[in-house]
């Protein structure tokens, strides 16, 4: 990894190696079984916490270990070595569920909700998308109405990662009529009367991560569960999208890297027409292209993370990194499947799983079209 010496210091490489060791010891041996079963044991959360992985990226004042965007990229790359993006997404749902909570800097919320997630005792999730709206966040209709010292919440949320077993839901709700200024974040405990999981959704990939449709039926939530100020929800969301999108870029880089490694190993040992597949020039060129794409995506992703850690607010560049890495993951996985031939299409091969998991990347956390909208806007178009 000497190529990235100018961006990665020892803290980054050590975090990556630790996350990778954790993945190799605690995820990889079970990846196939967990993927097929559509979930992974809850005990993995405290185990990951014990290994110091869950708290990276959360400030020390909020009970975390500190660390920046590039450290979080390292964690994802390391964990992805378990070859199950679903497990990484499930373990990582606190990465999107918690920021709106600790950003309030309220000790009561940090002690009750943030710290237990960092020790792996509780699970959090982030609920923005609804059956009727996704890309168009201003279309959020889940309503919170004041009633005495409570909010009363009604509506539903869709495609929520870890929504099936989350203990609390960081929920974007409509508290006013203004399309953007009428949105707020509420912390809703999953055991409040009226909260229910309507469906555990079946998906193309990310099988080990549960994805829920949630329903809120006149759920009473105390006033104190409002995160930040009323009407600030949209701004908070936009700010936190930056890291979520960077994280998804990291999934893309890691996915493509593993697919490339798998294809390299397979084509070296697989023989056809009297020689290793890797000795055909067409294979060599294909692998060379795949490696080039991986390095390109990784370079952009690391550089954006590095600039974010230096304090830059890079809306367009983050969106570019997400799109490049997502496309790279899909293309490299496609090629890897092709290079493995029939084996690439079999559930027992890692690239089969990666190629399904990669399909999420241009959709989740803002679609590739929305990313292009943002990039165009940043270009002044």
């Amino acid at each position: 990894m000497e190529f990235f010496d100018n961006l990665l210091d020892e803290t980054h490489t050590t975090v990556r190696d630790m996350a990778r060791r954790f993945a190799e010891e605690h995820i990889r041996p079970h990846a196939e079984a967990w993927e097929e079963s559509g979930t992974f044991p809850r005990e993995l959360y405290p185990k990951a916490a014990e290994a110091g992985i869950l708290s990276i990226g959360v400030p020390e004042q909020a009970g975390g270990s500190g660390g920046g965007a590039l450290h979080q990229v390292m964690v994802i790359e390391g964990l992805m070595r378990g070859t199950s993006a679903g497990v990484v997404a499930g373990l990582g749902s606190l990465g999107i569920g918690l920021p709106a909570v600790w950003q309030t800097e309220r000790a009561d919320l940090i002690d009750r909700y943030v710290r237990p997630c960092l020790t792996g005792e509780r699970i959090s999730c982030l609920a923005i998308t609804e059956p009727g709206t996704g890309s168009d966040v201003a279309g959020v209709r889940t309503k919170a109405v004041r009633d005495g010292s409570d909010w009363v919440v009604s509506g539903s949320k869709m495609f929520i990662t870890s929504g099936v077993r989350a203990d609390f839901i960081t929920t974007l709700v409509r508290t006013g009529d203004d399309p953007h200024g009428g949105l707020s974040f509420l912390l809703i405990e999953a055991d409040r009367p009226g909260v229910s999981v309507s469906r555990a959704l079946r998906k193309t990939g990310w099988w080990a991560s549960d994805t829920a449709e949630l329903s809120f039926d006149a759920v009473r939530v105390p006033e104190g569960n409002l995160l930040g100020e009323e009407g600030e929800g949209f701004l908070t969301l936009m700010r936190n999208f930056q890291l979520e999108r960077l994280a998804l870029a990291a999934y893309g880089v890691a996915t493509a890297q593993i697919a490339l490694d798998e294809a390299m190993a397979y084509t070296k040992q697989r023989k056809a027409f009297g020689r290793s597949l890797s000795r055909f020039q067409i294979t060599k060129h294909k692998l060379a292209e795949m490696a080039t794409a991986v390095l390109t995506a990784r370079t952009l992703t690391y550089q954006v993370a590095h600039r974010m850690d230096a304090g830059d607010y890079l809306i367009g560049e983050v969106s570019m990194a997400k799109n490049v890495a997502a496309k790279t993951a899909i293309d490299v996985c496609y090629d890897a499947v092709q290079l493995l031939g029939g084996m690439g299409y079999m559930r027992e091969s890692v690239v089969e799983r990666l190629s399904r998991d990669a399909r999420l990347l241009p959709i989740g956390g803002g679609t590739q079209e929305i990313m292009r909208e943002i990039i165009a806007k940043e270009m002044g178009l």
Partner: protein
Amino acid sequence: MKIGVCAKVTPDTGAQIKVVGNGIDTAGIKWVVNPYDAYAIEEAVKTVENHGGSVHLFTVGDDSVVAPLRAGGLAVGGEDLTQISDAALNDADSLGVAKALAASLKAAGVEAVFAGKESVDGVSSQVPAMVAELLGWPLVSIVTGFETDGSTFKATREIGGGVVEVVSGSLPAVFTCDKGLNTPRYAKLPQIMKAKRKKVIKQDLAAIGLSAADVAPKATESNFSEPAARPAGRMLSGSVQEQAKELVHLLRNEAKVL
């Protein structure tokens, strides 16, 4: 208690080793703390967590060994790293390395020394025994269990046939650590951050009262060779009966294993 740990960096055990000339091709190799030394570090850290004190790492090597030792040593509880580096040590043998380590450990005033039972690259298992001899301390090798009250120790070793031997004595002493002794902890980000600022004490031979002549090698590695390449596999064809018959024939007459 002040504990010294002798640790070196070795290629990651997953690395592809290629012999070139009188050494190995180091291109693309990832260097990590020798896995057996990681047990030594963990045991030392656990011991000071229970009894107070501090863990000090000692290594012989150039600047390239510092980063892996920060990650695998200082970030998991080591207080500082003493790096003994001297041109005269470049082709030192085990005795030369042991002399340097012993001199440095003695100067630091450590009360116990932990090391790996062997390094996964050199696999000579000589250095810790020589260090013990040079310090005039007892050596307990290949330890899989360790207890101390701060002045005496009880170490267990698995000897042949699964028999467990218990060795007791008083400190100071040198212990070499085997797999099974403990599970090395994960380095956590706050400690990794702190490790960046921990002290690396660089010593040349003069700083520890030795001369180039003291560490001149008495034995040198003269040649390396790779194991013979495995012959290619053979696919049998025909009906299952024919294949089974052919397989038995080959196992008996060619492989001579039946």
